[in-house]
Structure formats: C-alpha cells, structure tokens
C-alpha cells in the first residue's frame, strides 16, 4: 500500500521559533545555525544548546537525508511510518516517510523533504519521501 501525503496534527507554533514554520510554508527546511560555534541544532531553540550563544540564524538545508531508524504504526487507523532522518548537513530530525509503500522503507534509504498540511489550518510541516 503506497501512502498518501497526510494531513498531520497541528504543531501549535512556538512564537520564538515561528520562522521554522514560515519557511516550511515556503517549501524550505530551515535549521537553526549558531554563528558562534557554527553548529546546526534541531529542534530549534532560542539559544545554541552546544555553546550557549544566542547569536543564531537559520540555514536552509538541502532537504536530502537518509533514514536513521523508523517504525510503521500498523494499528493506527491510517498506518504511517515515523522516522528519524539524518540530514546531509548533520542533524537528525523526527518526521514521517510518506508517499511510499510502507513495506519498502529501510534504514539507510535516501529521502528528500516534502511538506504536509496540518489540521485546523495549521502550518505545513516537513515530511520525507523517497529521493528521486
């Protein structure tokens, strides 16, 4: 069964990092970048968890990554695949693997970002599909 692009639960935006969803709405995956230590971190914070600097900006990443781990929720009303995806640029982020046969997902698989709607007119959120 190949899954559809889902409509996911609303994330309820945290104001201090609202930019993340604004970027997602424009089809960009923006990751928090520390201008002091040059590290990327996710989930985004208002300071760098590695060096405690608050001199941060956002880096638009390629959206390419590999599946680090995943699990198919077989008993959900609509089965879905939750996954950790390690981005080309380093950080690993929690997401879904979509538009894919749920029996075909594998660790190490190349994926690329897509964006899914959320309920109650919420912001778009990043998901991943098989890399073309």
């Amino acid at each position, binding site marked *: 069964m190949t899954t559809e692009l889902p409509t*996911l639960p609303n994330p309820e935006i945290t104001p201090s990092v609202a930019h993340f969803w604004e970027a997602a709405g424009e089809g960009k995956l923006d990751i928090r970048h520390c201008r002091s230590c040059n590290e990327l971190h*996710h989930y985004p914070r208002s300071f760098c968890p590695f060096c405690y600097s608050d001199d941060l900006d956002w880096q638009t990443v390629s959206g390419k990554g590999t599946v680090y781990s*995943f699990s198919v929720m*077989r008993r959900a009303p609509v089965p879905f695949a939750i996954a*950790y995806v390690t981005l080309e640029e380093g950080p690993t*982020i929690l997401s879904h693997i979509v538009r894919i046969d749920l029996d075909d997902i594998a660790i*190490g698989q190349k994926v690329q970002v897509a964006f899914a709607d959320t309920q109650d007119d919420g912001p778009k959120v990043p998901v991943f599909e098989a890399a073309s």
Partner: protein
Amino acid sequence: MSIRGKAYVAGIAEHPVRKATDLSIMQIVSDLVTWALDDAGLEPEMVDGFFCDSEMPGLGVLSAAEYLGLNNLVHMDNTDPGGSAYPMHVSHAAQAIATGKCKVAVAVLAGRPRAAGKGADPVPDFGIPELAFEHPYSSMVLNQYAMVAMRHMHEFGLTSEQLAWVKVAASHHAQHNEHAMLRDLVTVEDVVNSPMISDPLHRLDCCVVSDGGGAVVVVAPEIAKTLKRPPVVVRGAGEAVKHLDGGRVDLTYSAARKSGQVAFEEAGVTPADIKYASIYDSFTITVVQQLEDLGFCEPGKGGAFVADGNLIAGVGKLPVNTDGGGLCSNHPNNRGGMTKVLEAVRQLRGEAHPKVQVPNCDLAVAQAMGGWLGSRHASGTLILERE
C-alpha cells in the same frame, strides 16, 4: 561521600489489584503504606521522609501526607523522571538518611490508568519545547521504543525471535505469581505471530497496562538493627539522562550506560557478581538495551544474551524479573520502576516464589527507565545486598 551501607530497605508492599475499578488512588496509597510499614514492623508516627512522583494527586506530597495522617515529615522528594523515579527514590532516601535529614522514609507509587481508560502517553502540553516538532508525527512511547529496536536490528542483527525470549522468560515466571495479569506460558512463536503493532514490536513485545502500585520503606542502620525482617542494604545507586542532543541522535545505547557505571562503581561490584536482576521491561527491547548498557553483555550482544531462556530462573545464567515483570504481571500507572525494586528485595530476602527464588541471592540490581528510550529518557540503577 557514598550511600554504600548507609540505609536499609526495611519494608515493601505491592498492591494485588490490577484493575482498580472501585478503589481511589488514595485508597491504594493508604493500603500500600499500611502494608509496607507492617512489613517493616514500624509505626506511621516514625515516618519522617516521604517520596512520591508528580502524578500523586495533590501538590507533591501534600495530599498524601494529609490523607495518611503523617505529622512528622521533615524530608520530602518528588523526583519524577517517569518510570525510573523509584530506584532514585530509594537512592535519594538513602542520601537523606546518610546526611541525617530523616530516618524512616516511605516511597509510594499508585495509579489507576486502566480503570480510568487512560493511555501510556501524557496529555500534550505545548509548553514542552520539543512537542511542536514531535506531536505532528504522532511520536509516542510505543514508536519511540520501536525505533530503538529497529536500529538495533540494523546495527547488531538483533532478531524478533531474540526479543521474544524476554517475554517468554517473563511468562515462565508469571505462571507462579497469583497476582500476575498474564499467567499463561507463551512461546517465541506466540510472540512473533502476535499482531505487529509498531515495527518491529508485536503486541506480546509490549507490557501490560495496570492499576495499583507499590511502596518501600527505607530506614537508617540503627533502626534496621531493631527490625525482624532480613536486612537488605543499599549498596550503590546511579542515575542519568540521555536525550536527542540537538539532533546528534544515537539510539544504540541508553542512559543506563552511565547510571549503571556510577552504581556499580559505588557498590564496588561488577555485573558478574549480580545474582538477580530486575530490569524494566516496558517492552522487550527495553530489557535488551539495559542489559547491554549495564554491562551484563557486550554492546550489541543483548539479543544473543536473552535468547534460549537465559533470563529464566533455574534455567539461565541471569534470572530477570521473576515476578513476571511488566510484560506479564504488573506495570502500575505506566511506571515500572517500583515493582523492579520490590522483586529485587523479595529475592534478597529469600521471599520470591519458591519456583523462581534464586539460591543464595545476596546481590541484586533494580534497573528502571523513564520516558522515551528513542528520545529523552532517564535511567535509575540501584544495587541492593542481603547482609
């Protein structure tokens, strides 16, 4: 300063209820505290330290202290990293006793999620910073543990059959526990043929949801000497937290690696010295991961270690969860750490069921995990000794 030898577990109680339709949480609490103090041979007036988790109704200890009529409390603690809280409560009680803050501490866990129809996951609170980045993806206890199992299979060749052995061992033990929720023996085939819930975890890889709870009384050495029960001394303890570290995710080990190292160092013993192990079994993978991280086997070899009955009392090298554990007996309020302490104490006292009692059991570990193994979690390790 060490807590080694500074405090004793003097009393324990486990509620026999598994579905508390007609019991309030506070009735469960009062049953447990009454029974644990009776077990110790102590009076409520002597209780001067009180420990509970943050799900205790009322503000921390306040409602419970009033309900129980405790008027002499001079030390309290609501340490609450989920199911790992209870080995920590014993450790913190020992710390408080060692520093003279109290002499008779009671730690209690009680809850009734099954009767209330509640799931294992907390109600979303969007003050939690990670939630906006996890809630849309339906991240929950189940799939967080499943992703650890999936990665373990990929990295180390863990199999579903090996995981199944953890449940098989629990069922061998639970058949002798009259209070266990699930007392039927199961086979590896039963586990791997049960419905897939969250790849690679099947229904029988998951623990029960149950009501009830447990209590433990920790006392100062001079009080322990006056009591009739077999003396069980706190020998060492450790605690640790692990999380996603800003996206530097590594699911191949858990916080038990650090908490175990700290506890074994304090106790001055090694895993090879341990005669019995209570290992939190929210899921089968939880046991495999913690056994590796505590050093009972090499990293990545947990699957081979648990296979072929190695955790079954009288059969394998390391008897684990001889009460049937969370997988078969009890997982009160979705928090498994308390029952882990209780069965370790029973084993050290020689009071486990005769069919599962470990001969000459003089050293035991009670290990618990709280939170989400695949993201942020805490680990509490407690090493107890029969004197």
